[in-house]
């Protein structure tokens, strides 16, 4: 058809290189449909981000993109610009529910979940309600009341901080087993083999873990969590500023680098822009080329719309 000739990039459609958990391949053997990419809110920035649902096994996956400048793929007998690598990893839906619970808490009352999880911008959020064991998950972050079997929920900051602390702890454990370099000071120990620095190390790990978790919660909650964990205020005397910065300089979070770009894609108003962290803003400035590919991933329609604004 004439359509394909319009493509300025060349003769071939864009090829997306993905890494999926093996469980998705296994699940696909029994499925006719039910796997889908949708855009939902990013609970940290409030912008849009891409997620993958497996509606048969009722699983949610987060999509992140690794991108390094000046890279491209050879894919069999073709070339694909950008060199992007997409990761789909299981996501705890409670981070997303929490975003809506905090929003709904402005009304200050107990509400049923289907009145909490509503979003004019991302109507696919209702798919979250189909995930399993939500009642159990919600216990971690809400007070609940039941009237005639119907459950009503209200955000509880106290419970949420407790839950987030556990998240930080299990993330720290994984950082250690993965031998992730968590900060400038840790790297410097590689050169000076004294162990006087080892006491600092624990703090670097917790800071790093806090930074990773902070990518799934609002700035306010991240600050509250920092206080709750008794993380020292990042002072000017420290060589490595807040957790976010540390993270960005390190490798595994490269995936995140593009995650940010993912989300800047939907940027429309300055108001929303202000929700970005300093690190995200810096990243958004540095390189927006990743956005383009995500646009095309989500079809020309939304691209057009953004162009108009």
């Amino acid at each position, binding site marked *: 058809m004439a359509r394909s000739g319009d493509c300025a990039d060349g003769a071939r459609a864009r090829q997306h290189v993905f890494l999926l958990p093996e469980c998705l391949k296994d699940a696909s053997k*029994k499925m*006719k449909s039910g796997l889908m990419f949708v855009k939902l809110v990013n609970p940290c920035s409030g912008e849009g981000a891409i997620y993958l649902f497996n509606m048969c096994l009722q699983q949610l996956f987060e999509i992140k993109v690794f991108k*390094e400048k*000046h*890279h*491209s793929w050879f894919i069999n*007998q073709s070339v694909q610009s950008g060199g992007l690598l997409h*990761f789909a990893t299981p996501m705890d839906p409670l981070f997303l529910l929490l975003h809506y619970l905090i929003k709904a808490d402005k009304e200050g009352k107990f509400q049923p979940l289907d009145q909490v999880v509503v979003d004019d911008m991302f109507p696919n959020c209702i798919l979250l309600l189909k995930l399993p064991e939500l009642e159990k998950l919600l216990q971690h972050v809400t007070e609940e009341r039941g009237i005639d079997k119907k459950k009503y929920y209200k955000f509880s900051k106290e419970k949420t901080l407790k839950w987030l602390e556990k998240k930080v702890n299990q993330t720290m454990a994984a950082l250690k087993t993965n031998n992730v370099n968590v900060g400038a000071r840790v790297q410097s120990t590689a050169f000076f083999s004294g162990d006087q620095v080892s006491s600092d190390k624990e703090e670097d790990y917790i800071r790093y873990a806090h930074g990773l978790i902070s990518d799934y919660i609002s700035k306010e909650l991240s600050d509250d969590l920092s206080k709750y964990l008794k993380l020292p205020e990042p002072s000017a005397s420290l060589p490595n500023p807040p957790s976010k910065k540390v993270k960005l300089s390190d490798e595994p979070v*490269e995936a995140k680098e593009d995650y940010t770009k993912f989300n800047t894609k939907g940027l429309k108003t300055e108001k929303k822009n202000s929700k970005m962290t300093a690190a995200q803003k810096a990243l958004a400035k540095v390189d927006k080329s990743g956005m383009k590919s995500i646009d095309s991933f989500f079809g020309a329609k*939304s691209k057009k719309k953004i162009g108009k604004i």
Partner: protein
Amino acid sequence: MESSDEAAVQKHRIHLRPVSLRDAAPVTLHLLPCEVPVNQPAPVGRFFTPAIRQGPAGLEVSFRGRKLRGEEVVLPPGLVGYVMVMEEKQDFSEGPENDDEQEEQELVEPPEALERNFDCFIGATASFSRFTLWGLETIPGPDAKVRGALTWPSLAAAIHSQVPED
């Protein structure tokens, strides 16, 4: 028809065809340390692949007059690589879904209809479990950023697994 206002709302769903994950053929991937600003067929097998030599410290190849040095990267266990391509929009809908009707096995479908006629489809065209990572002049080595990125899934698993009960 949708109004343009509706288009701003992010209601699209891109359905990934499960069948394409099942029988995706293996693909050869090279991650190059340079920009090639096009997406199109390229005679990789004619000019690039035959020039790859096994050097003393890894793979070597000459590309656009520069020396590249490379190594195999095997995906961490539990991950499968796929190359995916969006399907052209078909206005007469239905799509190729009907083609696999003759499958003997009864396949699971979600309890409700999830596909709407304005949705798009994407499918895997190929799969991989390793790729060749190339560096300019030097071997990318263990510090290559992409190797760091490959540890993300295990970290994500820790972040997103359920917390222990009190």
